[in-house]
């Protein structure tokens, strides 16, 4: 077959496949265009999961008739004025989105340039552009995409259910909405309308938008993150570990305002939460990375979902540190969900035995003897935990501390403490376990790790790239007690393993590590392995539930919790205490 230049509409269709994968990608491109046009209000309507119709209206700058004619041409953009691909501050920069959509769907754009008194329309169908016609529109731009992928039926087959596509569209808008609290969004999908009202760009505004997007609890269950190093800044909100989710959908990551799903950042996120969450739980967080656009390449992925940092380890380190700092605010906060849930459970009970109660309805006792005897046994059969409270003297100074003064131990498991404006219930076992664990972790970091040298060094066969990655990190691994070196083609030789791991399977350990490094670029599994053992030992030395504590011991435990980082959760991610504010208690009794 002779080599020939592909006709333009075929080229466009190929490009379209890369940029527009599914309805959500079209929505993303259109909303980004609206944001780039300076809109403060964006309205999205979809039907049929976006396959039948996508309509995006904005109140941005609009386009005049010449621009309108040009904007659907390939590589036509107003955003890249110099030829400097490294200095990009808008979301769009390729001039690729509209032509791609035009190649795959029936596209109509109506726009009115700001200050102009006329609006115009252009249509593209199957890559064929119409003439520019006058149209009616009060301001901004309205883009309509109908019958997406009608021209590429193969693509249609890969779409998921209408529901799934709708969810993906909403997810895309959520991410953009998080990035831009100063833009109001309305999404109408089928019968549903979601609205994100205009918010400020300050921390309060961001938090309010996060609450809009994630749900009501978000505000009370997140801590602000803010850190900068060498020109890179990370800001945002990090969910408390007790507020985690079972999937990673609530992780929102942005680089210079652009939503991304970047491996470096996701790895850093895991690092920051490393031993606060057990596997299977994912943090809720919205993190905004800002850095000189020259330090990051956003043009590495057709849908711009991934970026490439010039100095990934700087960014990773910063994010991990920032999260750790934000989350380790000592015992300051645990998720409030506990208290909220309690309040919602504790609706006034309408126990029939009591409702008539002492007011003295003296209904004659009708039950037989056997029944009475049965009832007597039932009371005996109540849980036998020791409910005698252990009373402690109260010091004013303790009352003013975050976790307050211990007042009682109940069921030999829970410490009840009084604070200035509420009360705290501590799970003594979970709390103590956490304290011991943090101590061990510190010791591990400070004292280094002793290693057992192997009598027979273990040869582990791996891919060449894995070998290279492991060897590149040999120094770091050695600090964690794993000493290895390259061993011919496609293998490493393990010479020493952390003594703490005892007799360990070097093969598996190294393979796991290699896999993890390939994906996340850090040595977390090893560290986690070590800490898991430290944690098992700590479980051992922990105060078990069911141990009677003296008042002094209780207060000592509370003070220690206040001093310990991450004291709000036990090693398994469960809360170690719940706080009930007087306000909550008043709610319990219906006084509020």
């Amino acid at each position, binding site marked *: 077959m002779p080599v020939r230049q592909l006709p333009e509409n075929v080229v466009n269709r190929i490009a379209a496949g890369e940029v527009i994968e599914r309805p959500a990608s079209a929505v993303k491109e259109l909303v980004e265009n609206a944001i780039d046009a300076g809109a403060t209000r964006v309205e999205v309507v979809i039907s049929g999961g976006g396959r039948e119709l996508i309509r995006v209206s904005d109140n941005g700058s609009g386009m005049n008739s010449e621009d309108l004619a040009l904007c659907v041409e390939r590589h036509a953009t107003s955003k890249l004025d110099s030829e400097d691909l490294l200095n990009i501050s808008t979301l769009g920069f390729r001039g690729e989105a509209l032509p791609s959509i035009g190649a795959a769907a029936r596209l109509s754009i109506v726009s009115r340039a700001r200050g102009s008194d006329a609006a115009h329309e252009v249509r593209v169908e199957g890559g064929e552009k119409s003439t520019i016609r006058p149209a009616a529109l009060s301001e901004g731009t309205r883009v309509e995409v109908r019958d997406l992928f009608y021209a590429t039926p193969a693509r249609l087959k890969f779409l998921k259910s209408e529901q799934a596509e709708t969810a993906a569209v909403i997810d895309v808008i959520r991410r953009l909405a998080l990035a831009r609290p100063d833009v109001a969004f309305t999404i109408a999908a089928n019968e549903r309308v979601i609205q994100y009202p205009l918010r400020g760009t300050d921390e309060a505004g961001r938090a309010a938008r996060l609450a809009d997007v994630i749900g009501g609890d978000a505000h009370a269950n997140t801590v602000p993150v803010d850190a900068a190093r060498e020109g890179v800044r990370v800001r945002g909100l990090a969910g408390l570990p007790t507020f985690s989710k079972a999937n990673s959908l609530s992780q929102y990551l942005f680089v210079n305002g652009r939503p991304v799903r970047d491996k470096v950042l996701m790895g850093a996120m895991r690092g920051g939460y490393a031993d606060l969450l057990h596997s299977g739980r994912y943090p809720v967080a919205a993190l905004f990375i800002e850095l000189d656009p020259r330090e990051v390449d956003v043009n590495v992925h057709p849908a711009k979902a991934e970026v490439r940092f010039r100095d990934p380890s700087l960014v990773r380190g910063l994010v991990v540190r920032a999260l750790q700092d934000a989350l380790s605010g000592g015992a300051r906060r645990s998720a409030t969900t506990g208290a909220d849930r309690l309040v919602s459970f504790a609706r006034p009970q309408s126990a029939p035995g009591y409702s008539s109660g002492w007011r003295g309805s003296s209904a004659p006792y009708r039950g037989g003897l056997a029944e009475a005897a049965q009832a007597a046994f039932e009371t005996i059969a109540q849980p036998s935990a020791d409910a005698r409270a252990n009373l402690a003297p109260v010091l004013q100074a303790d009352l003013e501390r975050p976790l307050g003064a211990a007042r009682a131990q109940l069921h030999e498991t829970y410490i009840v403490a009084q604070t200035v404006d509420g009360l705290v219930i501590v799970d003594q076992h979970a709390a103590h376990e956490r304290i011991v664990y943090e*101590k061990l972790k510190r*010791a591990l970091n*400070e*004292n280094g790790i*002793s*290693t*057992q*040298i*192997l*009598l*027979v060094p*273990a040869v582990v066969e791996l891919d060449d790239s894995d070998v290279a990655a492991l060897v590149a990190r040999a120094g770091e691994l050695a600090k964690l007690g794993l000493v290895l070196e390259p061993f011919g083609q496609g293998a490493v030789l393990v010479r*020493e393993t*952390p*003594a*703490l*791991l*005892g*007799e*360990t*399977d070097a*093969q*598996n350990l190294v393979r796991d590590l290699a896999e993890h490094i390939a994906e996340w670029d850090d040595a977390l599994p090893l560290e986690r392995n070590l800490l898991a*053992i430290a944690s098992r*030992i700590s479980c*051992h030395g922990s105060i078990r539930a069911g141990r009677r504590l003296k008042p002094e011991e209780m207060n000592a435990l509370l003070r220690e919790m206040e001093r310990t980082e991450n004291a709000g959760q036990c090693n398994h991610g469960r809360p170690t205490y719940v706080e009930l504010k007087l306000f909550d208690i008043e709610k319990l009794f219906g006084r509020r």
Partner: protein
Amino acid sequence: MKVTIERAQLAKSLAHVHRVVERRNTIPILANVLLRAGKSSVELKATDLDLEIVETAPGEGKTTGSTTVPAHMIYDIVRKLPEGAQVELQSASDGAQLQVRAGRSKFTLQALPETDFPDLAAGEMTHSFNIASADLKRLIDRTQFAISTEETRYYLNGIYLHAIDDKLRAVATDGHRLAQAEIKAPKGAKGMPGVIVPRKTVAEVQRLIDDAGEEVKVELSATKIRFSLGNAVLTSKLIDGTFPDYGRVIPAGNDKTLVVDKSEFMSAVDRVSTVSSERGRAVKLALTDGKLTLSVINPDSGSATEELEVEYGAEALDIGFNGRYLLDILQQIEGEKARLKLADPGSPTLIEDMEAAGALYVLMPMRV
């Protein structure tokens, strides 16, 4: 089947065979012991499919026959029967139950037919020899502690038994330390294949050996081994793997020799280890002319040091070992003194028993 057997006899035999039965079993019949009554004896058999034990006890068979019942339960019952009792075992006519009667106690156990009971087909044994019980015990005792428990390295989960020159040698290693013991090869052992005897089998042989009399008969092929120990016959599969070429890790050129009183050394290691935390406890040894200083530093709780007078004339050396490993090895030393041959803090140390020839230990240091 109907048979009468003395309680003590039955209890002892059940004690031997019930250990082979795993506590948790997915195949019901494997939880059972097979009882087979002859005219003047009862045969008891249990298996976990890798290891099989058959023990014969004297008994008075009224009706010969066989059945199988839950091993742990019948053992518990027989143990609790009064001393000196005569126990009568009788299976119901349909074979679905077994009655255990002694004095006024009567138990009925659910039984399963013998036909379902698995047989560890032993196949042809190619080598056979008799070994003094004391010798076999020594081979096991000296090396058992070093068997690996890491299941991914299954080929280290046993003792490597092989004939070398005119010796029969046992070796075990877990990759951190190695133990080797040998005796003069018994007649018939020469030319036998090197075999890896699984940990569980080793432990059972060790338990049965005291009741075994003077000699144990060993038969083996490339896949199975059988030990006849008194009334008990233990047949086991061998670990199908290649034991590493252990000779390479036994150092030959270690030139720094330390001779130390075994029990003094052990108590000192034990004492200083008190301050170390649970796992991977490292004991540091500092060697200078005629003096050994042991120390443990635990940043969390404190430190400990102890000095010993020793025979040491080489240049000063600091080296760290896992305290538990050191103790494990010192425990094996039969004589009063242990000889350690050292090279440097990163290379294997050889530990020898100055009295028991043929036993040697290799220990890899720790880096602290």
